[in-house]
């Protein structure tokens, strides 16, 4: 046992050292050799990548006019076997060492698990509202009748075998078992009452002139991951979308990401609409409510900002789990709003704010929002 323990400590030291280098805390001279390797997972028709940072020391090696090798399989000359890549490294692998691309299918649940582990997100503790119960079906039982699609093959076989042995028709040299109707066994379900766990995310986004495509892309990516994580935590998740410039309106998902308006910004309009939505559709006794607001931090004026604060403290905070504000950096935004929020509610645990400088800081920002486990 002793030796096992020293093993673990040893590699963890090396691993910690590697992580420190990757994070740029030490050995800055190695920075240029860090590459963002990945393991590729597939989620439906999308591929997702599991980051796998690599640090490769330089060596004398063949350059890019050596992009050939030997493979095996069918196909005529000219048959494509693998796509090329962006920067001209790598290849279809096989006889070339150091290939790190792996493809797997992942479900949303696994994705969420990976996300959770990567960012060490705590599990969410829903508000205590076990009063709402819903019926839930669980396939735990076995029945003698049922649809063929639920036939339990192993149990059926066992019954048939038992019958054959008992009736003496079993022949060890020719062990053919043919189940008859009485042998068949089917999976059956039981209905259980379980407490309802429902959540709603209300996304709000500033679509005024200063939010460019790059900023929207950041919001989209971040929203996807937030969705993924909350979906893994709640049985039932709804999403609503609000856009605003000087006025706010509710839109569908498609519009939310692609709409481009111009003009001024009145954040209070969005908060007002959000608060109305909640009042109309989401009883805080039944729902875990997560409003997310993304903007570049510009607001029409201090008058409107003051109005926002009022809505937050009077209408929203009493109803929501947390209120999240993400400030995406843009060339035109002043970034004032986050400051105002932080100044106004310095110790409020229901308000989470985060600044998203660029694409690379998305993971940090997700952690800001979801790292509290609320």
């Amino acid at each position, binding site marked *: 046992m002793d030796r096992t323990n020293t093993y673990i400590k040893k590699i963890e030291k090396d691993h910690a050292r590697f992580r420190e280098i990757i994070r740029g805390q030490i050995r800055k001279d190695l920075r240029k050799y860090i590459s963002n390797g990945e393991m590729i997972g597939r989620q439906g028709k999308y591929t997702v990548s599991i980051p796998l940072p690599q640090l490769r020391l330089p060596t004398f090696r063949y350059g890019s006019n050596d992009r050939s090798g030997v493979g095996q399989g069918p196909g005529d000359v000219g048959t494509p076997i693998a796509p090329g*890549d962006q920067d001209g490294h790598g*290849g279809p692998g096989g006889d070339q060492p150091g290939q790190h691309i792996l493809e797997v299918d992942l479900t949303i649940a696994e994705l969420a698990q990976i996300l959770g582990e990567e960012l060490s997100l705590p599990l969410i503790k829903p508000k205590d509202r076990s009063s709402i119960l819903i019926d839930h079906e669980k396939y735990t039982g076995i029945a003698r009748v049922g649809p063929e699609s639920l036939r339990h093959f192993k149990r059926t076989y066992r019954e048939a075998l038992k019958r054959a042995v008992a009736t003496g028709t079993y022949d060890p040299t020719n062990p053919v078992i043919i189940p008859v109707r009485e042998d068949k066994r089917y999976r059956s379900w039981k209905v259980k009452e379980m407490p309802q766990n429902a959540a709603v995310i209300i996304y709000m986004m500033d679509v005024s002139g200063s939010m460019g495509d790059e900023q929207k892309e950041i919001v989209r990516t971040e929203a996807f991951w937030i969705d993924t994580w909350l979906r893994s935590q709640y049985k039932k998740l709804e999403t609503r979308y609000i856009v605003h410039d000087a006025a706010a309106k509710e839109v569908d998902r498609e519009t939310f990401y692609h709409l481009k308006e111009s003009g001024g910004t009145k954040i209070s309009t969005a908060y007002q609409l959000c608060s109305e939505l909640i009042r109309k559709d989401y009883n805080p006794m039944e729902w875990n409510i997560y409003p997310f607001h993304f903007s570049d931090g510009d607001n029409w004026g201090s008058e409107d900002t003051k109005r926002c604060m009022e809505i937050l403290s009077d209408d929203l905070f009493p109803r929501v789990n947390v209120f999240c504000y993400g400030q995406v950096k843009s060339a035109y935004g002043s970034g004032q709003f986050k400051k105002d929020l932080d100044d106004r509610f310095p110790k409020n645990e229901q308000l989470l704010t985060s600044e998203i400088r660029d694409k690379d800081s998305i993971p940090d920002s997700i952690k800001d929002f979801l790292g509290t486990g609320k």
Partner: protein
Amino acid sequence: MSQPAKHRETQKKVLSQADQLRRAQDEILKYAHAYGLQPFRTVFELVSHDEMNEIASYGGFPTRYPHWRFGMEYEELQKGYSWGLQKIYELVINNDPCYAYLMKSNMMVDQKMVIAHVYGHSDFFRNNMWFSQTNRRMIDEIANHGTRLRRHVERYGQENVEGFLDAALSLESLIDYHSVYSPHRRRARYEFAEEHEASGVHKLKAQKGYMDRFINPPEFLDAQRKKIEEQFQKKKRFPEEPTKDILEFLIEYAPLDNWQRDILSIVREEAYYFAPQALTKIMNEGWATYWHAKIMTEKALKEGEVIDFADHHSATLGMRPGAINPYKLGVELWRSIEERWDKGQFGREYDECDDLSAKRAWDKKLGQGREKIFEVRRIYNDITFIDDFLTKDFCIQHKLFVYKHNSQSNRYEIADRDFEAVKRSLLFRLTNMGHPVIVIQDGNFRNRAELLLKHRHEGVDLEVAEARDTLRNMHRVWQRPVNLETVVDDQPRLLSYDGDKFKEEDLTSSGA
């Protein structure tokens, strides 16, 4: 009270698993011996997946020196394992006794397959001549390296030692791979011959003065003089012959502190130790696969295990489209050799036979297959293995092809199915382990103690940006300007780094 009871129960279970494994090990060893395998005594250790990943990260040696790249390896293995993307089945160390690791969570049938596979490797380590010069007490040696390195870290500081180690690892592949068998590289190399006088041509004695011209013709004397002069010049060259063992040259001649020299020698020794495994990858994996399949299917497999065995066995031999799997290529080549020597499908008579159907039905019932594969496992490496036994028929039967990158469509495409082309490409990739051949041409270049490296260009350019960074590391060791002669886009070039700036010279104009 229930806690300790439970604990005892699990312990009992582990014990019985160990017992089962011990029984399987004895049984399989008996079969291996009966087939003529002569493995080292092999010690199996049962480890959890986490321990397995850790040991694998260290290249099989848990006591290896500390370095971040093992941590990087570990992260990849851990992630791959926890998301179910990959899993290490076998890990075996070339050492006497041989060490192998079994994963606790594997099914019994997997364990048996791995044990049989390991005995294949162990036999190969012991009997293939390319391994004959490797240190069979490497486990001790590696632990030694670890201790030495840790001591350097304590004395000279982490950043300092790690930085130098990184530079050394960046030069790790600069050894003479194909000399691993040669005992030459261990020879003490301090033989100082006396220097010749340029005029000291030995003349035959002529009795009569007028005969001298005929006994010692002037042309002959001139030629002799020239030869001596040449030898003398050669002695003045440094190194005398261009050397591929660049690490050795640096250890001996670079102006280093002893701890730095020690780090270089650690890196070099481990590179030479691991080299034969890379030199015989196809053969070695093929050999182990051949034997695990044979032992399992003919002897060790229980009826209930057939399906799982077939499943896992085929997974090891699985191919992604367009990639070579060394296990698969290796085992098929071994089987092809066995069949050909069983049937006598070799030699002049067979080669010159034009009748395809006669060739296909060719069977002289020689039965020399088994004997032949044991001979091949003794004296071949991957290059000679492919060169001698990859036949045209094999190439067609196994659908081998050469692929190339098509820059227009930005994808890899099948470029050629011609046998010669396939073989050439495979051999190119195996030569010098797929690394460009770089030698030290001159250790006193420009008579200023600069280092001149030469890339023996064989049609493929170096990755220039990386070559520069490697030169920077080389400079860190040599501490004087370093130069690399290579070819870039068909133009001979000299890349230089003087510790401050990079320079690139076109050698066509200077006529060098």
